[in-house]
């Protein structure tokens, strides 16, 4: 990574996050969709049935009121009807209006209003059932005919409210029926008149006919016109049809929705499987990338081979490797070449670029007898041709080369700064920004790579690092920074290099406090010992 990048890792993990949501098709979860498809047919059934019942009851009562007022000028029992009937109309039409509103999606449903409209609508019908059966002036027809509304209401209660309510109403209606039968008397018989008996009755003198009617009424057998039964029967039939119409379509629509839902579920299952494979593949790829990177780093024993220098180095790769590179190579005439760099971007390709850079660099240093600028130019050419031209990838790397010989350090190429901790504790920072340009970015960099020199006195420490160190983030998103790095090294300057490295890493880990390691963290410590 070049000096200012801490985010690519986050970005990439963000991308993986998106593919983990691979279950989404067109922004929605396939399983959620399947559930919706299956629920859709039954979702508004209760509401539709309730609306139709409300409309039937409300309009029938309204019609009744209008007819009564038009023909009689008043309602049959004004004291009761003037209050009860408008209330029934208001409740039913109000409930119908609310539920229609919700059904058309113009109003958000409110669970409380839902419950209220259901219970009140059904409650009124149940009350009507009891009133019809027990306050009917003809106790014989109430058992025979009016009881049918109670039976129908078992069905309505079950659909609109639920099974428990239906069972409760079933119990009530049976009790009501038993009571009605007892009121009429179990010994009562429905006796139908023959034609001659009917003719005889019609032939009665007015006084006798009136007496007969009075006797019948006194016994709770008030004569009722067939037209009344016909109208009531029509209303009951309408209610039954309303409930059945929507309920009967349900099974058909659920069945029709099944294949689509199953298809969605299959898509979800396939996506899940693909995702598992993808995760496995990515895991393997990252594992391979980390191993490639670790494979080519100098061994511990190699670091000890350099006369006059004590060297310690450590790299912690990020979960998705960041392509950090460091190396320590023997140069000509007993010099030591140090390499530090960082490939842009993350992942396997960054690891591969790092490998190429290391191989090209080693070859270049050998061929140029450790001449830094020509080596950088050659490496640039190799990386540009291989990565930009052949791989078609825009990866490149910061790369600084240092060559130590006899207390003098030459440095070339652009990377992070080089920190010097003098034996006195004084800290210096050497900026490599003017010493070059990213390697592999441009086809030719001849005029851009520059060499600079500084001296390293006996006991002086030189710190090479990648931005993984300085950009390590605390939980509060603050960066570790060069200030803390300098302090961390300076305070341990009397310790052996490997202990300083361990100490600095301990400081970094304390700083990130269990947070994510966004980028490879590389630290190389060099001390002049002779």
């Amino acid at each position, binding site marked *: 990574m070049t000096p200012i990048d*801490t985010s*690519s890792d986050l970005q990439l993990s963000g991308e993986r996050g998106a593919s983990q949501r691979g279950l989404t098709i067109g922004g929605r979860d396939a399983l959620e969709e399947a559930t919706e498809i299956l629920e859709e047919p039954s979702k508004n059934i209760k509401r539709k049935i309730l609306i139709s019942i409300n409309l039937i009851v409300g309009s029938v009562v309204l019609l009744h009121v209008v007819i009564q007022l038009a023909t009689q000028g008043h309602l049959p029992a004004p004291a009761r009807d003037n209050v009860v009937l408008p209330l029934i109309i208001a409740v039913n039409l109000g409930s119908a209006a609310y539920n229609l509103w919700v059904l058309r999606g113009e109003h958000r449903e409110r669970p409380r209003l839902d419950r209220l409209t259901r219970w009140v609508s059904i409650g009124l019908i149940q009350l009507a059932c009891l009133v019809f059966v027990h306050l009917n002036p003809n106790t014989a027809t109430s058992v025979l005919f009016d009881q049918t509304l109670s039976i129908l209401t078992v069905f309505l209660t079950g659909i609109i409210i639920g099974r428990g309510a239906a069972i409760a109403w079933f119990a009530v209606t049976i009790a009501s029926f038993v009571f009605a039968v007892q009121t009429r008397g179990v010994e009562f018989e429905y006796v139908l008149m023959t034609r001659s008996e009917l003719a005889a009755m019609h032939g009665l003198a007015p006084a006798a006919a009136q007496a007969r009617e009075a006797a019948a009424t006194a016994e709770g057998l008030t004569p009722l016109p067939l037209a009344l039964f016909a109208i009531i029967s029509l209303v009951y039939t309408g209610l039954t049809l309303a409930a059945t119409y929507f309920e009967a379509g349900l099974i058909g629509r659920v069945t029709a929705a099944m294949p689509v839902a199953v298809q969605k579920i299959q898509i979800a299952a396939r996506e899940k499987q693909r995702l598992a494979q993808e995760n496995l593949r990515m895991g393997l790829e990252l594992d391979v990338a980390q191993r490639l990177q670790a494979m080519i780093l100098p061994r511990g024993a190699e670091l000890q081979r350099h006369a006059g220098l004590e060297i310690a180095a450590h790299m912690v790769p990020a979960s998705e490797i960041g392509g950090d590179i460091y190396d320590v190579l023997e140069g000509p005439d007993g010099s030591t070449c140090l390499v530090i760099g960082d490939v*842009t971007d993350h992942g396997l390709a960054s690891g591969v670029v790092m490998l190429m850079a290391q191989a090209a660099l080693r070859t270049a240093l050998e061929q140029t007898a450790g001449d830094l600028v020509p080596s950088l130019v050659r490496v640039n050419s190799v990386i540009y041709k291989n990565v930009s031209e052949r791989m078609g990838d*825009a990866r490149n790397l910061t790369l600084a080369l240092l060559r130590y010989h006899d207390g003098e350090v030459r440095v070339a190429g652009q990377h992070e700064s080089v920190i010097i901790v003098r034996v006195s504790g004084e800290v210096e920072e050497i900026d490599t920004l003017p010493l070059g340009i*990213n390697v592999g*970015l*441009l086809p030719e960099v001849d005029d851009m790579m520059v060499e600079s020199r500084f001296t390293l006195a006996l006991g002086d420490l030189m710190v090479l690092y990648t931005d993984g160190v300085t950009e390590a983030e605390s939980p509060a998103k603050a960066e570790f920074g060069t200030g803390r790095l300098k302090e961390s090294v300076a305070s341990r300057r009397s310790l052996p290099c490997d202990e300083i490295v361990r100490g600095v890493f301990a400081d970094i880990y304390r700083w990130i406090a269990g947070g994510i390691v966004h980028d490879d963290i590389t630290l190389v410590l060099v001390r002049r010992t002779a």
Partner: protein
Amino acid sequence: MEVRETEAVVRFSPETATVYFSGALRLANVKAYDNVAKLLHAAAAQVGEQPLVLDFKELKFLNSSGITALSLFVVGARKAGKPQLKLVGSKATAWQQKSLANFQMLWKEVPLVIE
């Protein structure tokens, strides 16, 4: 002309011949910067002989992929000899001091104004 990314906006104003960068650009890789590159090329075509100003003052963050993408644009402009570029940055933002100088290294004649 405008490109909107999650955390950033890149906008070209023909009146001032300036591309304004604002927010934080952290796109996943160089390829992800294609839209920004397209805007830059379109802006370059539009300004013609006038210098094109790249104003980074409001850009808080630019990752290495973004630097690579912009570098490629600067190098392309140098090769073509046009448009003339002018880079404007802010002292307040740490990355700009470092990286804008890098763009200048790609094409030494490009004036860099750090305000």
